[in-house]
């Protein structure tokens, strides 16, 4: 008996060692590009781009990051990305929450067809709309402006917001709002006092999801803007590919700094972001 159980324990331990080891190695390999980026943002590029690469930094310096942070053009990119992401977030979340509530709590004739329509917009490749967007933006005077970018981005973020929020509200028992309304609440009161507080975790996840999507958006930004007045970080990053002499340190510093807000959001909200990802995939 004793030998059998200790053998079982040894096997379980072996399993764990194997599991942790294999996953750690895999995660290390997956994170090599990230490590190289961060590394090139704080040390001279000749230590990174050489045979063999210097793994233990000889010099670590914040000068590249400082240079980026003090450059007015890059400051503008950051400000634009923040305005765009928050604008798209507010617009998508407001319209999406209203629609999600409507689809979740009402039996709407034609509602299923509308949901499917929203799903097909969700599937629409952005690149097929760049031609009309480019032209419309000129016609309505929104070319090379942040409001134009916000409007265009929301068209692609609102569908996912609506679907995710509807899915989340569906998982909140309807007995709760019914009970509130039986007790004399109006619909708006039941929405404000019962449904909204329960929906907060879901909305936080959706908000994080939308913010990440808007912050990382590239195609619409490159099509609908042409001056740093309205260009975002992704356009600033991608412009590097057109340079003949590559300032690797500067660009990796910018790239690292541009990723910091997202990694922070992800680390703090991992649970909800993951929920949003898997729900978005399955529904």
């Amino acid at each position, binding site marked *: 008996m004793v030998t059998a159980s200790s053998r079982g324990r040894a096997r379980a331990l072996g399993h764990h060692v194997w599991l*942790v080891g294999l996953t750690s190695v*895999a995660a290390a390999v*997956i*994170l*090599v*590009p*990230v490590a*190289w*980026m961060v590394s090139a943002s704080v040390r001279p590029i000749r230590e*990174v781009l*050489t*045979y*063999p*690469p210097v793994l233990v930094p000889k010099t670590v310096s914040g000068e590249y990051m400082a240079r980026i942070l003090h450059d007015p053009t890059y400051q503008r990119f950051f400000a634009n990305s923040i305005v765009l992401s928050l604008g798209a977030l507010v617009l998508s979340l407001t*319209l*999406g929450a*209203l*629609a999600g509530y*409507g689809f979740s*709590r*009402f*039996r709407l004739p034609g*509602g*299923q067809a509308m949901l499917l*329509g929203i799903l097909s917009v969700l599937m*629409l*490749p952005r*690149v*097929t*709309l*760049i*031609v*009309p967007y*480019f*032209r*419309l933006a000129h016609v309505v005077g929104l070319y090379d402006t942040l409001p134009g970018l916000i409007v265009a981005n*929301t068209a692609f973020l609102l569908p996912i917001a609506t679907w995710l929020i509807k899915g989340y509200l*569906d998982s909140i*028992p*309807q*007995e709760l709002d*019914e009970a509130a309304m039986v007790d004399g609440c109006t*619909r708006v009161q039941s929405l404000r006092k019962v449904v909204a507080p329960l929906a907060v975790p879901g909305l936080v996840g959706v908000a994080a999801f939308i913010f990440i999507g808007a912050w*990382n958006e590239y*195609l619409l930004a*490159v099509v609908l803007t042409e001056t740093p007045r309205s260009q975002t970080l992704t356009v600033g990053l991608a412009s*590097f*590919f057109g340079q003949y002499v590559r300032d690797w340190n500067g660009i990796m510093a910018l*790239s690292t700094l*541009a*990723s910091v807000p997202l*990694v922070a959001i*992800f*680390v703090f909200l*991992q649970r909800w972001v993951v*929920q949003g*990802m*898997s729900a978005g*995939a*399955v529904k």
Partner: protein
Amino acid sequence: MRDRPRRYAAPERWAASPGGALGRRAGPPLPEAPGSRRAGTAADAGPRPAAGTARRLPGYVAGYLFVAPAILYLVLTAVYPVATVVAMGLQDVTAGRWHFVGAAHYAAVLRDPIFWNAVWNTSIFTAASVVLQLAVGLGFALLLHETWFHRGVRNTMRGALILPWVFSTAAAALMWSLLYDPYGLFNYLAVGVLHWPQPIAWLGDARLALGAIIVVNTWKSYPFYMVALLGALQNILPELYDAAKVDGAGPWQRFVAVTLPQLRTVLVAISTVDLITTFGHVDLVNMLTQGGPGRATETVAFYVYRTALLDGNLTRGAATSTIMLVLLVLGTQAYLRALARRGEPSW
């Protein structure tokens, strides 16, 4: 982890609700009966259990008010532009004036060998990306689904493995171009470790460039599969594995006979979404190679972008967009039909 969405059984009183007495409420609710809006009094729209979905509260006129802003927004910013893209493809611009030219642009695109080269590149890019992402995502999902001795360690690993998804495509393209550099890590491994005679131009060699982009795309997008499949794995009933064990099935047999069939629905759904996303993907090609060297990495999506914005031929670009949408719908249908099980209606 969240529980699976709960289903609520309908209380008895609903069977006798006024809505239940109406004949049209018994059938599938989809077709909008003429005058249904007029009949939308509170009594008529009374709550009724919908098969498998949450119950609804009365008063759908108010419901329309909730969904109207979003629907209106999408009609203006998505449906209307899609309609104009078809129309723009039938026109041409000379000296700033638009005029109708019929199907000329459509014919020109379809006769263009460069377009068909792009279709070929897109097929390879899409197929390889989807297969690789699925394989990597499923592999990691299975690892994370194992019994871990410590939840925190598992969640940290999960977070680390999702991380590539968090970065922007622009940041991902930059990270990888650092690795692909003549003096970057990969060439150190090739030249310094494996003694390859000269640095490899990963993005500059027509035979390698598309593969190099597929690798970056896979790195960026596999977490989507991993997360979705992890959720699906957690929803498989343990009894199924117990039954298979009792029948003497080994780990591989359990994987083939229990895991894969149980993941089927999710696999079909996410690979379809991914197929559509990858087909329309333009960012990486635009940043890393601009379709080059030659036309080795030019995809249909990049063909649209190049024609419309780099060459400035908006109407030709619009025609290509329309063709692209048609190809997308046909491709998706073919994919779903190929996956539909015999005797099942294809989606």
